[in-house]
């Protein structure tokens, strides 16, 4: 049995279920208690679990991130709420130098079971410091797992798996999707980290879309269907680990691939996935692998400019059409 709930509710349910199941799970961050965060994702949790486990902090991201690392090393399983993905820069030392490396540097003696929940996504008219999609930064760092839920269903299943994981996991939720509804099982379920999903099958081109860009790929596939082009849509769900098998299997079948992701294109997730396809499925390809990331500019405020920076279904469909028809996308 499923029912339609919002991504926000899915996150809330995942946390509530895990906090009920495991006393050591705590929430920590700015305005996570009574306020339930600015996005109201955590509303109601403090009423059930109390301020001992739903901990409001001062505005001190490196501080509460570091505290969470130490707490995770000593028996708690903190879920850290980082209000905006843009604030990742503030916690980088504690996340990347401490949390990510502790298990390795200690030869496996210490581990850091924590979840860092944060968000990504532009077009909310929030300008350059509240709109970035910075998942590539952390996916670059060995020792961190990175999840990119693309609907309420993934948000709940991946978060529950992340909370039970014995390693630091960073989850990026698309802040524009918090109110989007999707069918979510009533029964408990987990989505293992490292398993991609094929959301739509098609023979001619593979559209790989992460998080917010999954919907863009699905819409592009509909546009392409009307043109008589069959597109396959793959959602990696997690960047680390990355389910190469599913991605490469799809590309070997379709011989064409477009990778769509809301992080900046340069040196980003699209580049990484495209490179792996080029290396490992080269002899199956009929066309170059196309990367479509966010435009490599700081996110502008004006709607007239901001909308230009994010891949659109029309843009993805246009590139797919060109690939399928043998028209060079990047003509010399």
């Amino acid at each position: 049995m499923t029912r339609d709930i919002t991504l926000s509710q899915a996150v809330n349910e995942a946390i509530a279920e895990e906090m009920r199941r495991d006393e050591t799970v705590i929430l920590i961050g700015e305005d996570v208690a009574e306020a339930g965060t600015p996005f109201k994702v955590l509303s109601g949790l403090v009423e059930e679990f109390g301020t001992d486990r739903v901990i409001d902090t001062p505005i001190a991201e490196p501080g509460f991130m570091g505290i969470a690392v130490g707490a995770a090393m000593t028996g708690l399983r903190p879920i850290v709420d980082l209000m905006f993905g843009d604030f990742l820069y503030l916690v980088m030392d504690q996340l990347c130098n401490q949390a990510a490396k502790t298990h390795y540097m200690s030869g496996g003696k210490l581990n850091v079971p924590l979840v860092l929940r944060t968000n990504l996504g532009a077009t909310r008219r929030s300008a350059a410091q509240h709109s970035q999609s910075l998942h590539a930064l952390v996916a670059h760092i060995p020792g961190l797992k990175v999840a990119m839920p693309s609907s309420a269903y993934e948000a709940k299943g991946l978060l529950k798996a992340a909370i039970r994981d014995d390693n630091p996991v960073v989850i990026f939720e698309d802040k524009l999707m918090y109110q989007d509804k999707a069918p979510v099982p009533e029964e408990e379920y987990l989505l293992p980290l490292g398993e991609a999903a094929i959301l739509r099958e098609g023979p001619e081109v593979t559209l790989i879309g992460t998080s917010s860009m999954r919907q863009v790929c699905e819409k592009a596939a509909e546009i392409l269907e009307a043109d008589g082009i069959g597109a396959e849509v793959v959602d990696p769900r997690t960047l680390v680990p990355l389910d190469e098998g599913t991605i490469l299997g799809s590309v070997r079948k379709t011989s064409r691939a477009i990778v769509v992701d809301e992080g900046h294109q340069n040196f980003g997730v699209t580049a990484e996935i495209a490179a792996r396809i080029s290396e490992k499925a080269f002899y199956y390809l009929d066309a170059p692998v196309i990367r479509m990331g966010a435009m490599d500019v700081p996110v502008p405020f004006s709607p007239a400019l901001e909308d230009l920076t994010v891949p659109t279904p029309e843009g993805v469909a246009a590139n797919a059409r060109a690939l399928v028809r043998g028209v060079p996308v990047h003509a010399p």
Partner: protein
Amino acid sequence: MPRDKQANAEAYLRMYRQMVRIRAFEDNANQLYLNAKMPGLTHMYSGQEAVAVGICEALTDEDRITSTHRGHGHCLAKGAELKLMFCELLGKEEGYCRGKGGSMHIADQAHGNLGANAIVGGSAGIATGAALSAKRLGRNYVTVCFFGDGATAQGLWYEVMNMAALWKLPVIYACENNGYSEYTSTDEVVAGSLTARAEAFGIEAHQVDGQDVLAVNKCSTELAERCRRGEGPFFMELETYRYHGHHVGDINRDYYRSKEEEARWKADRDPIINFGRWLLSEGVATKKELVAIDSEIGDEAAAAVEYALAAPYPDAIEVDMHVFKGVEHALPYMSGARQ
């Protein structure tokens, strides 16, 4: 000998032995570096022994510490073995971290050592988080965060002190003020007073002579007990001195620190010599007994070095192990291989 001193004789001798062990460890580590037998470099704790030993004597194995790049002393004082420490310094498989951490990352969770840290001030959050765990899980342990005077310039410490004070966490911030951060004198980088900084958060602060192991131990025993009663957090500033350069390769250092100053500290304020004299004058030990301790530990350290030099390096297959808990080899895992 007065009765309380007699009762404490065992503890006194333990502290003496621990200080001598740290000094012996560092002398050997320095020699390994000078003989090009140690990969990389290391930061000597010599001169500061009374701080680590005085504090750790006040702690149990259940109590936690976080340590620094200058961490061998903390590690040994918290109970680590010479042999496994030398193995780690030399990158050997038997080392505390299987050779993956080295001098600046030794962790020994069996004795509550949550690890040294090569980011100056980087462990302030970890120590405070360990204290949060103690409080939340109803455990009665205390966490001591060791850091240098240089680390007091990092913002993280102020953020976590604020939270520790707000939440009354059982943590002691122990600042080893050895007068220098790298090649810079503390006076040039610290405005105002360090104790006042902690006091600004409503945290009780103590200044202690870090060369006097008994003074350090007395203060930390009281503060640890008060932490256990929910009266934490606390701050200790321990005045101390490092004998060597910033690291083993920092040999010509006249430009920031005079030889006279170094000689004065070594002659007048050596924590081991002074405590040894006190043990003699109080009749806790005889000269012969102290000499025996020194030579026994010297032999132990020499044997540990021999052992570590002969010990095997980790197998190449280990290079992508221990990246993730529960994952045997990280490389195939990250490319989607099912576990």
